């Protein structure tokens, strides 16, 4: 049948019936038929599709050179021009879970086809790859293999057919940290009234935007000797040299910029501008020291109160995803650590 879906399946040496830990270094083997769990997948596809190739790879072989072996797997998958790709299920096998996540993420990204795997929630592969792909929830062992395979097949077909609802609870995958627009049965205004009435009556209700409040950041220890401490100025107010030579983004930043203040007593409006897209910048444009107070800090330096780092760090804090903010902050921390800086003054808008 020409319209049968072509399916490729990735498994490890154990499920590929090559061997256990002793065979974990085995290289990639391709069989053009279903093997092990693939036999179950094939029968559950119930004629809609069939496994045209099984890729078997040793857990150590891929774990020791994950990116390169993943690339090799993707190249092989590509040759078979599949419609759907399955990997695992990996249960609680750590190296196998990471391998399944890695090849699924790469297949999805490079070939744009549905890529489905399943594993136990504590499998390290889940945490690494859940942001990239839907990973189905599986038990920690293979006792109920048939049930897991059935879920994988159903999910793969719903991805292929475009009927997926992206509902982690209903569809049994680990929440990935993303969202899509959804149309409800009831208007938002009425949902808010219902939620309030439930809350007042102590009935169960579910917030649609959960609040993350677990994060506790302890205050750092105070400086012991201010006069010997070097201070850096950091802003998310998007101050940069005129002409924005490095092309700092006005919003949705992914990086920060370092601008030298060597030999400068203050920041002049002739030399600096502000490219932030979310506030009235006129006061900053009139006097950039209002945003990055180098003039005041230099005076303190002259008076021997503290030392000043000869550059300021700048980014644009506007509609920046939290994930980007964390990455920018990590980079800033690294910069601060590598430049003998003792403290930072953060100025915002």
């Amino acid at each position: 049948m020409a319209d049968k879906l072509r399916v490729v399946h990735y498994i490890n040496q154990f499920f590929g019936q090559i061997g256990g830990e002793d065979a974990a270094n085995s290289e990639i083997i391709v069989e053009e038929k279903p093997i092990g769990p693939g036999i179950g997948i094939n029968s559950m596809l119930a004629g809609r599709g069939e496994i045209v190739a099984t890729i078997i790879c040793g857990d150590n072989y891929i774990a020791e050179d994950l990116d390169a072996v993943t690339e090799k797997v993707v190249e092989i998958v590509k040759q078979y021009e599949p419609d759907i790709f399955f990997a695992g299920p990996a249960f609680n096998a750590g190296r196998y879970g990471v391998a399944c996540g890695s090849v699924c993420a790469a297949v999805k990204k490079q070939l744009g086809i549905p890529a489905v795997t399943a594993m136990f929630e504590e499998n390290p592969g889940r945490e690494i790859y859940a942001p990239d792909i839907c990973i189905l929830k599986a038990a920690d062992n293979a006792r109920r293999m048939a049930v897991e395979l059935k879920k994988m097949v159903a999910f793969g077909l719903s991805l292929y057919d475009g009927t997926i609802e992206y509902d982690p609870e209903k569809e049994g995958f680990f929440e990935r940290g993303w969202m899509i627009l959804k149309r409800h049965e009831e208007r938002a205004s009425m949902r808010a009234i219902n939620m309030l009435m439930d809350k007042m009556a102590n009935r169960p209700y579910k917030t649609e935007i959960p609040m993350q409040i677990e994060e506790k950041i302890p205050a750092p220890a105070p400086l012991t000797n201010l006069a010997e401490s070097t201070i850096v100025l950091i802003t998310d107010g998007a101050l940069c040299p005129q002409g924005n030579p490095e092309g700092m983004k006005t919003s949705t930043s992914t990086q920060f910029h370092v601008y030298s203040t060597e030999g400068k007593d203050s920041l002049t409006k002739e030399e600096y501008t502000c490219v932030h897209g979310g506030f009235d910048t006129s006061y900053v444009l009139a006097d950039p020291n209002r945003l990055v107070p180098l003039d005041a800090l230099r005076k303190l330096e002259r008076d021997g109160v503290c030392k000043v780092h000869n550059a300021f760090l700048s980014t644009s804090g506007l509609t920046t995803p939290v994930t980007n903010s964390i990455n920018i902050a990590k980079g800033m921390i690294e910069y601060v650590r590598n430049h003998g800086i003792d403290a930072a003054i953060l100025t915002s808008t």
Partner: protein
Amino acid sequence: MLLERIHLVIEQVVFDSESYIKDKVLHISKQDLENVAADEAFSKIEFELACPGEKCRIVNMGDIVQPAIKLGEGESTFPGVVDKLGIVGSGSTLMLDGVVISETVEVKLPLASMMETSEAVAEMTDFAKMIHIVIDAFPGEGVSKESYMDALHKASKRLAKFLASLAMGLEADYTENFTLECDGLDGLPKIAYLANLFCHAPYQETTVYGGGMIDSLPTIIHPNEILDGALTNKNYNNSINADPTFVWQNHPIILDLYSRHGKDLNFVGVVLNNAHHIVETKQRNASMAAALVAKQLKAEGVIITKEGGGHPQVDVGFETDILEGKYGIKTSILFTEFLSPNNDSNGQLLIKTKHADAIVSTGCFTIVEFPPVDKVIGHIPQIAADGKPQSDLSGTLAIKNRTLQGCESQLGWTYYGSQKF
């Protein structure tokens, strides 16, 4: 305080030599409209129709308003904008359904919204199901952008009043009555509505009786006043983060609370607040707004909305902490999840408080792509999702969903929310 809203349903709009309504058809004379809309800030005024099902695009939009006129001697329509000041919310108001006055703005706007009337778009916004009479007014030479926008804001409301006046003396299709005084309220949970406006700067504001709340303290307002044209949208510089006047006239929370008033809840009133720039002012206003909800309205539960972008969340957070923490008043909140354009589901809240535990999402980012259209109203290129002005006004257009009028409403006018995955 009893408000009667008398509605006439319009099914078709045609340009004619005279203006009148007959058999659900609104006949309008362009000359009449021009006379009503005329302002020295305009060099030229044109009028166009965009009808449901038509492949028509309205670009660079300002406000959308429903035709309405106050009936009775001495009554003011859109007080402070059209007529002299007077308090609305009681007496009778005549309104036209199925037709709206819409503005295309002939100066560049930083965050302009748009509209299409094709069938596919009607899935996304109720505005695509309405007939738009679009005012396309051009700024006169030497007229400032501000003077032009002010004139346009007033002209569209005058037109709304004029069109509704054509229905005077005609038989109504239906009538709505709004009053908070009714029997059987004893023992029902007392619910208030707290609306945080975003009056940030001139032309970036929702006006109350014609003026912004930029320096205002919170105030109690009767819900009927809002349903009767007390609030108008003047967010020309931030159009995509505000709801048009039409949505205030048909405020979904007020209408939904009214629909249950005396049945399973007791709607005790509305507090208006403004999201200020400065933290101390936010705290002052949040404290006062919460006190009004608690001490004046004596509410037991309150629904809170905001407008604008990120920082008004802070005002809602302060209010929630005081309402729940100090007064023990339960809260539910409406937020739009647009802080992270990558739709990161953990990056949508600026506030961290255990009290904000009942939040309704009014939607998140998505890109909507429209195929080419047959007709374009307006001349300023629409800003597409990539941030660039569209080169071919009638060509394929990809926009962020909140750019489409009525597709994303921070007041809760849509059925949208988000699915976390």
